């Protein structure tokens, strides 16, 4: 067991920034390949005419989740060293709702707006400006929000722990759910894109 490599000291902070840059290139590349530089394609998810957002997101989640699971089973990755962010249930749900509304109004999320801006979309560039302002407002309001922000803390709890299931079983269930979701997405797309696309 010698991964995650950074945590085992194979390289230091300076090199990790180069790794960040290279991983970012891969991230941006596949986002653009999927069509996520286009606000219209992203927003179409919410009008059921194009379910690409759902398909790409869940394929990526399943790929990384299953890959990490097997790498840990074979003893290559020490899962306890992979950072799982802390759960603060209610602020995360409220934040998610606000973010979902922002997604429909703005057409992007932070990562995809970078790709949009990099491929010449003026609305993507304006959107990035909006993100900066939104974060500034949050920061300025932080003293008022702090109590809510740190409420309903549950630590870095995972779904297998919450449901008292084994890691492997939960991974399997998520894969099944995703496959069902893909079948549903294909059906929905066929049903709702009729007449809107030539």
């Amino acid at each position, binding site marked *: 067991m010698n991964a*995650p*490599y950074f*945590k085992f000291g194979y390289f230091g902070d300076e090199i990790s920034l180069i*790794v960040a*840059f*290279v*991983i*970012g290139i*891969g*991230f*941006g590349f*596949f*986002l653009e*390949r*999927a069509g996520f530089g286009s606000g*219209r394609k992203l*927003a179409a998810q919410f*009008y059921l005419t194009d379910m*690409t957002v759902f*398909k*790409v997101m869940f394929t*990526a*989640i399943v790929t990384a989740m299953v890959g*990490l699971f097997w*790498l840990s089973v074979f003893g*290559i990755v020490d899962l306890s060293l992979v950072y799982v*962010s802390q*759960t603060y*249930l209610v602020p995360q749900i*409220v*934040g*998610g*709702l*606000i973010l*979902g*509304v*922002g*997604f*429909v*109004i703005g057409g992007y*999320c*932070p*990562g995809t*707006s*970078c790709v949009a801006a*990099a491929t*010449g979309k003026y*609305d993507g560039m*304006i959107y990035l400006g*909006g*993100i900066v302002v939104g*974060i*500034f*407002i*949050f920061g300025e309001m*932080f003293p008022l929000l702090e109590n809510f922000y740190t409420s309903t803390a549950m630590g870095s709890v*995972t*779904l*297998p722990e*919450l449901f008292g299931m084994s890691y492997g079983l939960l991974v399997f269930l998520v894969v099944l759910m995703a496959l069902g979701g893909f079948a549903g997405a294909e059906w929905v797309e066929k049903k709702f894109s009729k007449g809107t696309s030539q």
Partner: protein
Amino acid sequence: MTTLAKAASPEDIAAQPVVKADRKVQPYWNPYLAGVGLGLVLLAAFVIMGRGLGASGAFTSLVSVGVNAVAPEHAKFNAFFSEYLGDGTHHPLKEWLVFEVIGVLVGGFISGSLAHRIKGTVEKSPRISIRGRMMFAFVGGILMGFGAKLARGCTSGQALTGGALLGVGSWAFMLAVFAGGYAVAYFFRRQWT
């Protein structure tokens, strides 16, 4: 992959006559194929770094540095900004996510160039004016920035990364994003459909 290799060939590009300015825009990849690619990038981040991807965190570093430049005392006494400014042992922009997001810009540009998709344009339905769309984009960005901070991450850091790691908060967040989007989509349909 074949189309990618073809477009990447330098002789190919050099051989193109200059007058052929409007090169054919290539179609997007199959979503499942792009998803596997994205998933492998995320997996690489887990295996190499022991952490996932992100985006909004990089902008928080940027905002914190900006606030600090204008009003250092103010930034110091704000628990949110001061956390991102760090303890002074390294420059606050020398952050993993900042470098990752610079990579995202470069990666998006590379992919867009290879597929001839770089174009100065505004993404919108013909039913809304450019001015109206730009206003919505700005307001949407503000909501996104605020929401992402409240949720401790955005679609990259929470939904994608936390989703793959089976974090409880991340899954609750992901469901909330879709719920919020679908709840209001009808009211903004002129912008997109």
